[in-house]
């Protein structure tokens, strides 16, 4: 690192010689080839060096400067490691077979359904998973609607086999208009967000999904 800087400075001084010649019109005396081991520079110039000995100029005489260079070096090394970690895990395929069954549909308020069974694979860098179940359907006014019915956060260290049964939908399944009644085809899909330690945030859809038709009539409110 210091060697590169010194090469840049020496090339700059060579440029300066040619500029001086053009400006003054005189021949500028070329520096005679230095004797090996001769000390160049004076205590008043910024740099001192020993001629023809390629030596990196260290400035680590105090504890603080040593600590500074040590810390900066380890931080750069850590950044390189994080990049390597991103490279090794960002391109893994994260599709997992998902099994969804729907047990009962009540159009008025809630959907009860036996939840998905899933085996997830947390890699080198994943920190946690963000799961959500969405339903897609088509209506007359809009060709595609996606509604999120339920979500859950899975942290690192929880058991990775999720077996969720009889989950109720967390959010209401609203539709603008009356598109849900007698809708022939509603597709429920489980997908998730993988939150990584380092890298991009992929959005993966589970490979299982299930379609079901909704009933024709609204449920009447039960009176007790």
């Amino acid at each position, binding site marked *: 690192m210091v060697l590169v800087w010194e090469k840049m400075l020496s090339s700059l001084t060579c440029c300066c010689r040619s500029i001086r010649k053009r400006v003054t019109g005189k021949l500028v005396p070329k520096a005679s080839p230095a004797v090996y081991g001769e000390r160049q520079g*004076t205590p*008043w110039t910024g740099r001192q060096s020993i001629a023809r000995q390629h030596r*990196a100029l*260290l400035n*680590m*005489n*105090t*504890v603080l400067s*040593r*600590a500074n*260079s*040590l*810390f900066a*070096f*380890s931080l750069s*090394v*850590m950044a*390189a*490691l994080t990049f*390597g*970690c991103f490279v*090794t895990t960002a391109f893994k395929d994260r599709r997992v077979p998902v099994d969804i069954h729907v047990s009962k549909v009540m159009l008025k308020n809630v959907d009860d359904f036996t939840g998905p069974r899933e085996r997830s694979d*947390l*890699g*080198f*860098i994943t920190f946690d998973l963000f799961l959500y179940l969405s339903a897609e359907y088509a209506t007359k006014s809009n060709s595609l609607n996606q509604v999120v019915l339920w979500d859950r956060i899975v942290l690192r260290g929880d058991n990775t086999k999720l077996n969720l049964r009889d989950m109720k939908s967390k959010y209401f399944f609203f539709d603008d208009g009356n598109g849900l009644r007698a809708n022939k085809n509603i597709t429920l899909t489980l997908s998730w967000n993988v939150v990584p*330690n*380092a890298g991009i945030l992929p959005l993966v859809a589970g490979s299982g999904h299930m379609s079901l038709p909704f009933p024709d009539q609204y449920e009447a409110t039960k009176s007790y």
Partner: protein
Amino acid sequence: MLSIFKSIPTHMDYKGQKLAEQIFQGIILISAVIGFVYGLLIQQFGWTVYIVLAGFAVSCLLTLPPWPIYRRNPLPWQPVVAEPSGEPIQKPQDNTKRKKHK
């Protein structure tokens, strides 16, 4: 209280500084490689970070305090000359001479 800290000698000679830089760079690089491989094996990045931090602590311990191995090549200073009374007069003359040189 600061005088205590200032009186602790913390200097190393030049060869010692170069040796110290090589030592800590080597230790941190080795610990980074070991940590990366180990983290890749057990699929947890946290262990990589722990191993690199351990390497950082070890190299701190080895290079920050001025151990005697860093002081094996001291600079050869001139021996102290007994100062005659004419010494302070000579100094400004020296300065002007050097300015002309520049």
